[in-house]
């Protein structure tokens, strides 16, 4: 009995170094993205996956993952977390005495296409860092008065409002001569634009009388004055009264 216990103990002693060599510890350091890794949910875990083999390590305090008794092979390492996305790593466990090598890997690329080799730190610890925080929710575009003011339609309306209210004041405060000039200009523009087609001289245009157009328009404005609308007619009458 005693002998057998002794043999077992001896066997165990032989077994321990073999088994314990192929292990891997990952550590989540505090980063600006994740200042306090101890707030990660307890469901966070890491997996080492290869064909027909998976190792799972739950989040261990203080923020690390430990894999033990790994067998030789080339594994994909994923860290699964509800709140943060982690990059994938490649873990090669050597057949002899469990040499563990960790590389960066890129999903969607060839497996042989390894990235930077991540050094095994003190005691075989590799640091893993979250790549991004997960945002699940879509925010509704709520009602914001500032956004309303920024919209071009509202801006147009505000400008035209400003003109509508501001122009009479400007006119009233204007120098009388300037005002008279302005009104006559306006008069000419409105009357000429009132019926541009009416006064269009096709023959003249075809004859290349571009220069004579101004005169014709001035002539035409006299004839078209009576055909203006009520408002411009009123203006004409008022001027006549002056």
């Amino acid at each position, binding site marked *: *009995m005693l002998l*057998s*216990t002794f043999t*077992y103990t001896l066997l*165990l002693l032989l077994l321990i170094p073999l088994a314990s060599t192929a292990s891997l510890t990952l550590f989540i350091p505090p980063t600006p993205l994740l200042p306090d890794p101890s707030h990660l*949910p*307890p*469901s966070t*875990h890491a*997996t080492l*996956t*290869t*064909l*027909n083999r*998976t190792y799972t*390590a*739950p*989040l*261990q*305090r203080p923020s690390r993952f*430990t894999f*033990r*008794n790994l067998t030789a092979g*080339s594994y*994909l390492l*994923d860290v*699964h*977390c*509800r*709140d943060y*996305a982690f990059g*994938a790593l490649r873990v090669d466990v050597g057949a002899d005495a469990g040499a563990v090598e960790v590389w960066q890997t890129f*999903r*969607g*690329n*060839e*497996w*042989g296409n390894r990235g930077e080799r991540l050094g095994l730190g003190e005691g075989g610890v590799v640091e893993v860092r979250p790549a991004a925080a*997960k*945002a*699940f*929710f*879509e*925010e*509704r*575009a709520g*009602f914001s008065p500032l956004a309303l003011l920024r919209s071009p339609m509202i801006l147009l309306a505000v400008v035209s409002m400003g003109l509508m209210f501001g122009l009479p004041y400007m006119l009233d405060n204007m120098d009388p001569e300037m005002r008279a000039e302005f009104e006559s200009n306006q008069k000419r523009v409105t009357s000429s634009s009132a019926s541009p087609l009416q006064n269009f001289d096709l023959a003249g245009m075809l004859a290349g009388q571009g220069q004579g157009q101004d005169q014709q328009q001035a002539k035409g404005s006299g004839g078209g004055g009576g*055909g*203006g*609308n*009520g*408002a411009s*007619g*009123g203006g004409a*009458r*008022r001027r006549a009264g002056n």
Partner: protein
Amino acid sequence: MRTHALFALLVSFVPSAIAVFADDAYHTDYHHPLVGIPQEHNTFFHRPQASSRASLLYTLSEKLILGAINPKDGAVVWRQFLNPSSNLTSSTEGFLRAGENENTVISAVGSQISAWDALDGRLAWRNEFADGVAKDLEVIEFEDGKAKKSGKDAVVLFEGDHAVVRRISGETGDVLWEHRDGSGGIPHQLSTSNSNIYLVSLSSAGRAGLKIKVTSLDPVSGRERNHYALSSEADVSTPQSILFVGANSASPIIAWSDKASKVLKVNVIGSKHISSIDIPNENGEDIKKIRVHAPHITRSLPHFLVHYQSETRNWAEVYHINLSTSTVSKAYSLPKLAGPGAFSTSTQDANVFFTRNTENELLLLSSTSHGVLARWETASAAAPQDGVAEKEHPLHGVSEVISRPDSSYAVRSALVSSAGDWNLVRNGKAVWKRTEALAGAVAAEWAELPELKDLARELEVEVHENILAAYIHRVKRHVRDLQHFPKWIEYLPTRILGALSGDEKIAESAKGFNRDSFGFRKLVIVATETGRLYALSVADQGQVIWNIKAADLKDGERWDVTGMYADNAEGLMIVQIGSGENIVVETTTGRVVSASLEGSDTGRKWFTGANEGDPVLLSSGLVPRKNITVIARGPNGEVRGKRYAGDGFATTAWEFAPSAGERIAELTVRPFHDPVASIGRVLGDRSVMYKYLNPNLLLITTVSDAKYSATLTLLDSVSGNILYTTTHHGVDTTRPIVSALSENWFIYSFWGDVVPSSDRSSPPAQSSKGYRLVTTTLYESPLPNDRGPLGPSKNFSSTSPPSTPPFIKSQAYLIPSALSALAITSTRQGITSRQIIAFLADTHAIIAIPKLLLNPSRPIDRDPTPAEAEEGLSRYQPLLEFDPKWIISHKRDVIGAQKIITSPALLESTSLVFAYGIDIFGTRVAPSMAFDILGKGFNRMQLIGTVVALGAGVAFLAPMTLCVAGKSEDYQLEMADFVKFPEFVFRSAVDS
């Protein structure tokens, strides 16, 4: 450049369109975070922090979920899913213990022993042993002269080739010593006392039975101190015959009874003396169950209670142990009470309390005397459902007793009821209830609620009568409707308020238990492995409406439900059982209608696990329609198409047998409700690719475990013709290979590994490692505007298929996480684009992947042309990253979903989703956004505000216009002139 912008816009549009809105989260979705039915020996109250008096309720359930529950409200504090295999039916034993005043709880499941932080559920340490599975776990409570450490050590018993006892450091999880038992006995249990560790094992004593062998171990070195055997072979034949091995108390005991349940035998571990106690049973009742309850703390008094349960009554006796003589003496007995009962032990300092729970009262007793310390009437937690005359009774429970300074007591008991509920009763009052039996859901199906009014039926009557009769009928109907008027008026303010705030719940709750106008209110009937049926209301956060016991199962038997079918016209749910019978229940009440539906024409294909022998489904009462082909499994797993002649007898039309070394992993058919809105896909140049639309598609996944390969075969299930087959190598066959089929496309997912090429010089056949998702689409021909062999024919026939197979387009993606429980959203008309709903077992989430991204026509190695961009195609990327916004379970932690079912709402935009397995999760999704309903984003108050503002603006501007007009000398316009606007225009015209 502009196309680029458009393309970028399209891509950015797709994911953001389907994300969960922050204000919809936790409102439209619901989740039952379950732990499974707690096991009596793995459930306890424990203080996670020695400094705080607040305790949590810990359990390791039958589903091997370790959960910490807040006893105040029943909320889950943290959970860990410890099942080592994905197979939930595996019968791995689990153990959970906590040392007194420790901040960790220790679990042993399979080959793993882990310590978890009691407060936040993080792993403290873990150790794994390849040479056996855990048979027992105890925490060593006593100090053995070592320096004070941060955690109490644990002893674990492993059963492998030998029984191995290991002492595990409570600080690091390392092995301090191990003891191998070479005697060859069956290891049974461990027990610790103040100074010893005892290994209780059973050794065969010839044919007669089993001898109990007790080995005493030195706690410091693990060396065997001595051992003795108890001659129990006359009584003990199986390990189950031993009633109790008292763990971890000052005087651990072993208790067993003779086969006739007449004598109870008790051995105080450490002595060889066996005390025989006559079981009090004057009436000679058949004792069904004997349970021993003893405290688990070393410093508590050495008292224990024996609980006897017969068919009709329960009673108990309390015994005291004399520590010096190791003898047992009876202290007092408790009266016989009718019905079943549950006892639980709790300790406070050295005092031991027994709590007795019966159907209607709760008694608190001290172990020292028979006086009742406190008594409460327990009000039945749930009022009995109408139509369900079922009595629930407590099966077992744990209690926590607090004695107050004024010698009054407070007791809270967490009781597991016969219905599979976990109830917390505080001082006789029900505090919370968790429906843990739902964690064993095996099947679920949607059921419609009855329509609000039979208005359609009434109107039909009016159509068919003459005018006068119809008029009278209508008047009568209106008069009848008047009786609902006061109620309608009463609810009107609520409804208006609900409509204004956009809270549909307020608006809908007024309508009673009826179908709503959007089709969001439905029931899901869930069948559990415990033989129960539950109805969950989808609109009310998945609340249980009714539950019934539908089947009587033997211990350890799982309810074998093969299918569920809702008959919405009759309001019935038909549950098919593997044995061939079926159970028909009313969907709204849960009343069992025993009549089977003769001649019901379901038109649905059933997968049955039935063995060889026709007819397959006749016994179930659902006789299939004439000439329908039913897919059945043969005795060796082959798939058969059986054609029914109409008399219930079937002939085998075709058979699909996997090749040698392969097995069939999965069968997939198109969903029952799978409408196709368009028969073609319009390309950018306005030409059309015609979809291959065959309603009888069957996708068979066969795998070869030896060759690591998976073959997918697409069949026509009527003719048995193979339409398409493909083989993938380097496939992990131990992980689920999932597939889904709809319209003219299918998808499947698996783990693909690097496959070296057979030829060394060439690159590997498959060069990446990871989960893959393959999407395949079928068209009638490879050319647009061409229907191929089908030509102008209107109909497609499975029995005389076209000579050329359909045109197949396929693309594969690498995905970051394993998919399981694939499902496809289902909408009423199929116009809305589809999403693929899947469970991410790794991240404990449910995801909705837009089908638009899985179009196999995505251009490879080039940017899409403007025409392709118009189709919504983007450049093919081998990696399909999962956007967190696709996760429809957002922050919820969903574990163990086995299956996801979808159902269309009345609104075309929306599909309802329900996932079951362990947790229950449900929500509704709008894959093309909610285009036919005003969501919460539509602010009704804002709309009213805008109208009011516009009105105010008009009122402000109108006088101003008048003022401006008044300045003109010719026309003094009155307000009335605006009314007489035509006249005003006329006057102006005349004047000019």
